[in-house]
């Protein structure tokens, strides 16, 4: 099992590393632009958020958004392509259990999330002096977020039948949820109705936990920042394994 898992992970890492110009560079450029426009130009007019300088305030959100997008993009594109070019049959004819397949692809997504997250953090360090409030909270928040979105990307790939199907969710679901999850603002400034609505957005909890780990400020309880993504991970993993077992869109 370990060798099969290792094989899938190495294959996944080599895949996104081979096309680093498509996978690593664009998020770094986008992040730099975000910081320049929202933080540098507009941030001075906004002032402070939760007692933190606005440019510093948005940094955790920008890093986490990158992690979310990259973890999702890696599994959705990689798994969809293995279906598209039928190379998934290499795994289907082998004795690799479904949970190892899932774990391998998710690990690939998490690794890409980590690599791009580090690259983005490095780029950000040219604009902002970065500090960390708690490495532990930061690491757990990153891991839970990355695993959750890698799983979501995997499920999207199972259902996807065309390249259009793998771009719909990131554009119309993930990005709005990320923006509305407190990436650029604290939900404390929202009217009560919108604040209550934010409680149903799982990204809000992840964003809050990550911000707490980095800046030491948050809008919700820490246990919720860990519990909500954990529950989502359990649910998504169960769904993904069920779909693999049933052979939905992978076996006829």
């Amino acid at each position, binding site marked *: 099992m370990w060798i099969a898992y290792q094989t899938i992970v190495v294959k996944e890492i080599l*895949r996104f590393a081979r096309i680093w110009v498509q996978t690593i560079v664009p998020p770094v450029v986008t992040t730099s632009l975000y910081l320049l426009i929202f933080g540098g130009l507009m941030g001075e007019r906004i002032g402070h958020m939760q007692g933190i300088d606005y440019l510093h305030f948005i940094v955790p959100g920008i890093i986490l958004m990158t992690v979310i997008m990259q973890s999702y993009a890696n599994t959705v594109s990689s798994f969809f392509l293995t279906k598209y*070019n039928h190379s998934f049959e290499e*795994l289907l*004819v082998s004795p690799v259990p479904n949970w190892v397949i899932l774990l391998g692809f998710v690990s690939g997504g998490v690794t890409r999330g980590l690599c791009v997250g580090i690259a983005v953090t490095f780029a950000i360090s040219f604009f902002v002096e970065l500090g960390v409030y708690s490495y532990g909270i930061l690491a757990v928040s990153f891991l839970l977020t990355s695993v959750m979105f890698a799983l979501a990307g995997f499920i999207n790939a199972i259902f996807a039948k065309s390249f259009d199907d793998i771009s719909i969710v990131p554009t119309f679901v993930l990005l709005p949820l990320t923006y509305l999850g407190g990436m650029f603002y604290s939900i404390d400034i929202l009217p009560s109705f919108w604040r209550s609505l934010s409680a149903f957005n799982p990204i809000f909890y992840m964003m809050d936990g990550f911000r707490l780990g980095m800046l030491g400020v948050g809008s919700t309880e820490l246990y919720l920042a860990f519990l909500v993504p954990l529950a989502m991970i359990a649910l998504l993993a169960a769904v993904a394994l069920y779909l693999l077992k049933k052979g939905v869109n992978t076996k006829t």
Partner: protein
Amino acid sequence: MALALSTSALSKTYSNGFEALKAVDLKVEKGDFFALLGSNGAGKTTAIGIICGLIKSSAGSVEIDGLDQQKHINDVKRKIGLMPQEFNFNPHEPNIEILINQAGYFGINRKEARVRAEDLLKKINLWDRRLEVPQSLSGGMKRRLMLARALMHSPEILILDEPTAGVDVEIRRSMWRFLKQLNEEGLTIILTTHYLEEAESMCRNIAILNEGRIVVQSSMKDLLKKAKHQILILECVESLSENIKIRRCECEVLDEHTLQITLPESMSISDVITKLLLKNITVAHIRSAQNRLENLFLSLTSKES
């Protein structure tokens, strides 16, 4: 003789209602070189897909080396190597990586997998192309790469779905030699092909599928004995008259020196040559107009049958 593969009442109905397999019973002995023939849509690829775990059966069972496929799916998968009909590589992955990864899925570490990959790539003459990607290979090379991939985990049964489709004659013959050698070393091989001369020359046993049913399963020798007639083309030294007749044979003069004779199974070629000699016709060259297996195949799978 122990069985490498057996299926019992294996059936498959697709979601659109198409019955691809209808209670197929198949038996393949260990060490056999077995031909599974059938026209397009007969159910060969579906049967192979079910045996390898790529397609879910609707009913029936599969046993590999005495193991129930459903109960021991992982043990069964370890025993089978599949070379599918369609190319199914990641087109951007280097050829050697494709082989090493496949071995990895079967639990073989990279160091050992690299040794096996080198050995196989050299045997199929692709070692020089190991760092290239499948996209840069010709159709024949891709087929050889798929063959090597199927052999990476040293399976006990090799299933080849149209292995030589689109491959030129020279490479096809070298693949035949390689497969024969593997079979002689004890590997059970199940072959589907549209080249019937390939099946006739290589396989010891045969099953023919037609519209999802097995219409015949026997040894190649016994099946060929059932061929009711064979058609020969004779190149003759003397000029031929229009009305050559040989008892129990159909004769047709194709041109001044070429004669086509359809002879019944009870009659030997030497009988024909003797009879022609009595008519002062000397045969210079002789060849078969049609493959015997092809005739049988057509008669067994035609709508009228």
